[in-house]
């Protein structure tokens, strides 16, 4: 497969609304599935972008006397980071999404069988900036923040960066990676190894943590990140960090970077309805010197999901209530 040009952050494709066909949907670890679907070509998409998924409804053919009924659950689309995308001839592509079953939409997704269809809107959002000029690119992922990093790893190799993935999970059985039992994994976080197949195939070694210590570094991934950084001797000004996961984890990674002057990009999650900038659901509070009180809201769906970590206000709900 040709390595795509990921050297900029400008997706080269307009979003579309298309139906896709499931070609695989498998349990990869407890509560986590990888679904692969085939759809019209989206190879202009970039790592960090997402697809907005919903059940496929029979199109409302004008002579259809029933009319398209969109009401079966889930009603609204759900956003999923693109975890992988490969071209499939001709004018088709295969897209990977990794999801954890937690509610209405993900339960529906887990019920999909090979050959079933689903409705895909995308690709949406911006992407991880790669043209940062930094030699070292570290990915820091927690929980379902892992999926966009799998595709980013491929892009980083295409951009000739030295990538490392730091992956945290609550427990070993919630780690959505294929671990190679023959490869040792550092328990003090100071060494990265090609232990996770999904990253190793892009020549990206991993540092793994589990909160309960059942695998790899015992504790939060931020602890492993600090231990590795202290041991590695990588110059801060030649390093860029990309992070995605629970907000507290991203805030911690952002703090780690800010304290050391390391460039950092965060992939945010917000409750979304439209995914296209119309409904104003998905606000992220950011520092903005020119705005009243020095901050404003930006939209996660169109101005994100990737934000410069230094701009994000991490108070959770963002500033005071207005009007």
């Amino acid at each position, binding site marked *: 497969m040709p390595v795509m040009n990921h050297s900029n952050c400008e997706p080269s494709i307009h979003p579309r*609304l298309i139906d896709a066909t499931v070609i695989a949907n498998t349990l990869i670890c407890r509560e986590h599935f990888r679904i692969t679907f085939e759809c019209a070509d989206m190879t202009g998409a970039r790592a960090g972008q997402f697809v907005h998924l919903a059940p496929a409804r029979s199109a409302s053919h*004008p002579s259809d006397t029933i009319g398209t009924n969109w009401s079966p659950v889930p*009603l*609204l689309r759900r956003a999923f980071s693109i975890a992988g995308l490969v071209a499939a001839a001709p004018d088709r592509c295969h897209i990977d999404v990794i999801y954890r079953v937690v509610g209405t939409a993900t339960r529906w997704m887990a019920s999909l069988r090979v050959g079933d269809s689903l409705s895909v809107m995308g690709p949406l959002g911006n992407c991880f900036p790669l043209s940062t000029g930094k030699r070292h690119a570290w990915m820091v992922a927690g929980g379902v923040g892992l999926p966009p990093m799998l595709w980013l790893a491929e892009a980083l190799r295409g951009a000739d960066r030295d990538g490392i993935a730091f992956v945290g999970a609550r427990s070993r059985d919630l780690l959505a990676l294929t671990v190679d039992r023959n490869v040792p994994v550092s328990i003090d976080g100071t060494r990265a190894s090609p232990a996770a197949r999904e990253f190793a195939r892009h020549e990206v070694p991993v540092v793994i943590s589990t909160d309960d210590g059942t695998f790899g570094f015992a504790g939060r991934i931020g602890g492993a990140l600090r231990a590795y950084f202290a041991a590695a001797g990588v110059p801060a000004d030649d390093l860029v960090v990309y992070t995605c996961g629970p907000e507290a984890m991203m805030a911690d990674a952002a703090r780690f970077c800010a304290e050391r002057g390391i460039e950092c990009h965060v992939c945010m999650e917000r409750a979304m*309805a439209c995914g*296209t900038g119309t409904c104003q*659901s998905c606000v992220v509070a950011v520092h903005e010197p020119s705005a009243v009180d020095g901050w404003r809201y930006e939209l996660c769906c169109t101005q994100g999901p990737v934000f410069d970590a230094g701009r994000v206000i991490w108070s959770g709900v963002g500033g005071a209530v207005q009007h």
Partner: protein
Amino acid sequence: MGQNTTTTPIDLSVDLAGVHLINPVMTASGTSGFGPEYAAFLDISSLGAFVTKAVTPEERRGNPQPRTVETAAGMLNAIGLANVGLERFCREKVGYLSGLGIPIVVNVAGRNADDYANVCRRLDEIECLSILELNVSCPNVSDGLDYGTDAGRLEALVAHVRPFVRRAKLMVKLSPNVTDITATARAAVNGGAEILSLINTLQGMAINVETRKPMLANRVGGLSGPAIKPVAVCMTDKVYRAVARDAGVPIVAMGGIQNWRDAVEFMLAGATAVAVGTMLFVDPTVPIQIREGLTDYCHRHGLSAVRNIVGQVDR
């Protein structure tokens, strides 16, 4: 396509107080931004009319998040009228809207009667803005009560704004959070409304049972989507029979519309035009599908013009 579509062309056009719509399908305020957001999916110029997000005198950041949550066959929202404000709307948004070539409706909101009047006066000067829609589901700062829930204060608000809307048509959007919607409909017409739109969202709440916290940062929000459609059809029927038909005031109806059949239902209940809101989030092409479906419905029922079904539900 239907088999007999070639016989006679169907007239889908409707008239809203003198404003000509090429078909009766519109967008609902707050669900399609200021126009360009859906351009990748939908040719807006093929709609009957486009309705903007609320415009307030000042720029508003809106409520903290989470601002939306899905509920059974619907959603709650508490956006808090986030918008760029009147001046930036005029500078940054009107240009695009004026190029669409269809009637543009601007949704207007404020915190007191003068806010509404000031926004309307300014927008009335802009030729391409055909209709100004008063969003009266907003609290009045002086006492925190919605304008749209009390007939007396609604009539006073509409009458206050009336003299400032000379060129554009004045539409008033009714709140469903009332005991008797015909009373507020009558008040709006008495105040000078030339078109009525209904319904805005129904007040609702959802609670996270694990954390015992409200699902929305604002605690409560507005319910929209298919869940509210029967309520909206019922209110359209009531307002049509009690007020709009005799006053000659057209109705723009909305609430959970997802297909042409829903649109026909509202038109039979008395709506001259219909607006698609929440379902645009799921499929921005729903309005186009509705337009196609309306044509086919007319063929199947031997109708030469879709406007002939307005208010034609059996009594």
